[in-house]
């Protein structure tokens, strides 16, 4: 086997297949000392699989790995840790009823006499670590009570608490907003020394430019090319990735302001998160919701559909005042909600693709009396899978075996099959590749044209600017402004997103 001792990490001709899927064939990858290597490819291209092979979660069938010129054989995640490989997985892997500190040091707790834990020292160490990383987290906070973004930060802190040589990050920013992304990039730059390196997986293309040194593109489990970031354009990389060009400069379509109001929310207040949130959603409109993390966008959505209680609110749907006390009722009224956290609130992981795609609509569309119409269910799932190009070997594949982006497509499919009038999509394109994203945007535009009304909550400003007819900006539980499409820019949104905060900081 050829290998190059000057490389930090080398992957040569690696193969891995699963029943019905060739995840990797002849995969290769070189990571140099002191660099950040971007790894990009479409959903299901094999990025996560490669990283799981490197960290001993799967065992590969063929091929070799070298670390610092030495053959690398990891059988378990613990092996990987010992060899200096640290990974942040695409899906969060935290124990939700433990605290931040307990999660970070899980399995490596400071002990006395080998058995007794030393909670105070653990907290102190966590404080040190978080301070060093400039993260605003409470070591004693229960992970279950944190937002996805904060949980992601805990994962990052945990990965950086090892003395790692190679840090692998599988879509670390999919839940973060620009500010947090910038913060993470600072951390990464501080982590990289001439001895270490980072593999950075993302679907957010602009990040590649700001953080990576080189970029490796893979497609369908095969190595395509590696380019220097400085000398290549994003368009080139995208066309390597998806095999065609994508217009990333598209703008919202059919912006009009003469549409009737379908959903009107007035003075929505909850116990702690929301204060007098008011807005209108028009028929056939894509209404963007922007804001920093913790601004209350997800809380707004959950309160509207009755998933969380509210203190007061006047909600008017199609002109009549309604009270919605649970999501089932919301769905009956034609309001569907797609959660930002697909693993916890979206997927039935051990059930199949057909189930996950059709579960919302089975009762009203695919039954005769109490009996299911199995073939209609399969057909509907098949149609959705084809429309969204979900990569799956079959309708009966358990959804946990799909790649992250394909899982996300599956739950988008669920609400397309359901055919609601009002769709509340919370970070709908989280983990979805650039090509598929654009297709989903077009799909949503098409739905809006047909008279569906869509609320799109997104932490990605480019996404908001690409899609939203109007943008509601929230901050700290308040609506701080509503912008028309032509007024919305990065700057105007960010200004409103930080209004309330800066007011509070004033004496």
């Amino acid at each position, binding site marked *: 086997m050829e290998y190059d001792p000057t490389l930090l990490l080398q992957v040569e001709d690696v193969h891995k297949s699963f*029943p019905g899927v060739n995840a990797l064939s002849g995969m290769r990858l070189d990571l140099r000392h002191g660099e950040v290597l971007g790894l990009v490819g479409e959903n299901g291209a094999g990025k996560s699989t490669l990283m799981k092979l490197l960290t001993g979660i799967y065992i590969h069938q063929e091929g070799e790995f070298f670390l610092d010129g030495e053959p690398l054989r990891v059988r378990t995640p613990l092996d990987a840790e010992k060899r200096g490989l640290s990974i942040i997985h695409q899906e969060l892997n935290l124990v939700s009823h433990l605290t931040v500190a307990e999660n970070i040091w899980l399995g490596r707790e400071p002990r006395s006499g080998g058995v007794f834990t030393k909670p105070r020292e653990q907290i102190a160490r966590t404080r040190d670590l978080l301070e060093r990383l400039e993260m605003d987290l409470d070591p004693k906070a229960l992970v279950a009570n944190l937002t996805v973004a904060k949980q992601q930060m805990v994962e990052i802190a945990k990965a950086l608490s090892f003395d790692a040589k190679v840090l692998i990050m599988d879509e670390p920013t999919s839940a973060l907003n620009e500010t947090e992304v910038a913060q993470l990039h600072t951390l990464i730059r501080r982590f990289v020394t001439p001895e270490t390196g980072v593999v950075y997986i993302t679907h957010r293309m602009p990040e590649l430019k700001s953080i990576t040194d080189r970029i490796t593109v893979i497609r369908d489990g095969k190595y395509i090319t590696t380019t220097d970031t400085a000398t290549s354009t994003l368009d080139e990389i995208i066309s390597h990735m998806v095999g065609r060009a994508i217009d990333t400069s598209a703008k919202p379509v059919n912006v009009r302001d003469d549409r009737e109001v379908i959903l009107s929310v007035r003075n929505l207040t909850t116990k702690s998160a929301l204060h007098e949130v008011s807005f209108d959603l028009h028929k056939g409109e894509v209404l963007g919701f922007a804001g920093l993390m913790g601004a209350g966008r997800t809380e707004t959505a959950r309160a509207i559909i009755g998933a969380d209680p509210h203190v007061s609110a006047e909600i008017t749907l199609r002109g009549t005042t309604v009270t919605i006390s649970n999501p*089932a009722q919301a769905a009956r009224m034609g309001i569907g909600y797609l959660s930002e956290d697909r693993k*916890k609130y979206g997927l039935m992981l051990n059930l199949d693709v057909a189930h996950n795609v059709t579960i*919302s609509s089975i009762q009203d569309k695919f039954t005769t009396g109490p009996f*299911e119409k199995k073939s209609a269910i399969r057909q509907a799932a098949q*149609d959705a899978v084809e*429309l969204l190009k979900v*990569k799956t070997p*079959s309708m009966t594949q358990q959804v946990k075996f799909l790649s992250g982006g394909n899982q996300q497509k599956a739950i988008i499919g669920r609400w397309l099959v359901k055919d609601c009038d009002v769709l509340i999509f919370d970070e709908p394109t989280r983990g979805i590749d650039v090509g598929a994203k654009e297709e989903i945007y077009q799909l949503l535009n098409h739905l809006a044209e047909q008279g569906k009304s869509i609320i799109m909550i997104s932490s990605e400003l480019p996404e908001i600017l690409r899609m939203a007819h109007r943008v509601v900006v929230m901050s700290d539980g308040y609506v701080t402004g509503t912008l028309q499409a032509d007024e919305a820019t990065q700057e105007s949104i960010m200004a409103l997103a930080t209004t309330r905060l800066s007011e509070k900081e004033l004496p």
Partner: protein
Amino acid sequence: MFSAANPDPIQDSTAVVTPEEKQAGIWKQRLQQLLAFAGLLIIFLAFSIVAPTTFATYSNVMNILFSAVVIGCLAMGATLVIVSAGIDLSVGTGMALCAVMAATFMVRWGLPVWLGILLTLAFGAFIGLINGTAVTILGLPPFIATLAMMMICQGLALVVSNVAPIYFDPVDHASYMWISTGNLIPGSGFPNAIFVLILAVVVAYILFNKTILGRYDVSIGSNMEATALSGINVKKWLILIYAAAGTFTALGGIMISARLGSAQPATGAGYEMQAIAATVIGGTSLAGGKGSVIGTLIGALIISVINNGLQIIMLPQQWQNVVLGTVIVVVVFIDQLRNKQAKAR
């Protein structure tokens, strides 16, 4: 349903499953059940060899079936609940209470047999309804809610019966006993209990595999919050699932009292463990989201065969439990090992 045009129909990245692969999947599932069934046969044969004159006789096999009918009915209910990631500890004493209620309706109140049976089934459903309500509306953990119900049923069975068995009248209630010990097909040698078990399994199978209740059952067991956010009224369906389990419990109560010709208020405790064991042996995961009615049937048969076989070879009662416990560990361990291997491929 989709009116959205596919914006750009580039090559379909959806890999297709060849018919062979699909066939392989179906066979794998069949194989799993075949294996369990083979296990049942092996245990049966082993006892037949050890005790040829006493175990493998017609009357003893009927004994095994009578016991399997009761455990089987309870286990059908237990399976429905366990798949939803819940647990029902009240099926054992609930069965005893239902038997006492059946006797109350027919013997004490003198109601006709058909009405007594319907009322008993309704009563079982009512017990389940309360379990379900405690779990969903009051938000109690299923273990606690049904543990409490187990104790309540145990107590009520004694209270209602005045701490004494209630006997059915051999003449007035002949048709009641006929349900278990009669012969629908005269001279066939098959007691009706077998048909009741088959009926119970068919109903449970249809409920679990063909109806919306079964669909929501696995969905809730797999991820309750995601199911709720999908627009499904999880509370309502959970209550229905517990009510269905209660109905199967009542059927168990009817079958045991019809067989004995009396309602024994103190015989229920312990049956819940047998029902749960049968469910687990049958491949249903206690974590929820996955289960098999046929597997549970095989599990109930395995437990009945072992219970009976150990009695026949006159192993002391205390050792019977030791053996049964060991069997559960071994069976579930093998099942998990097989699942892990399938994953590692």
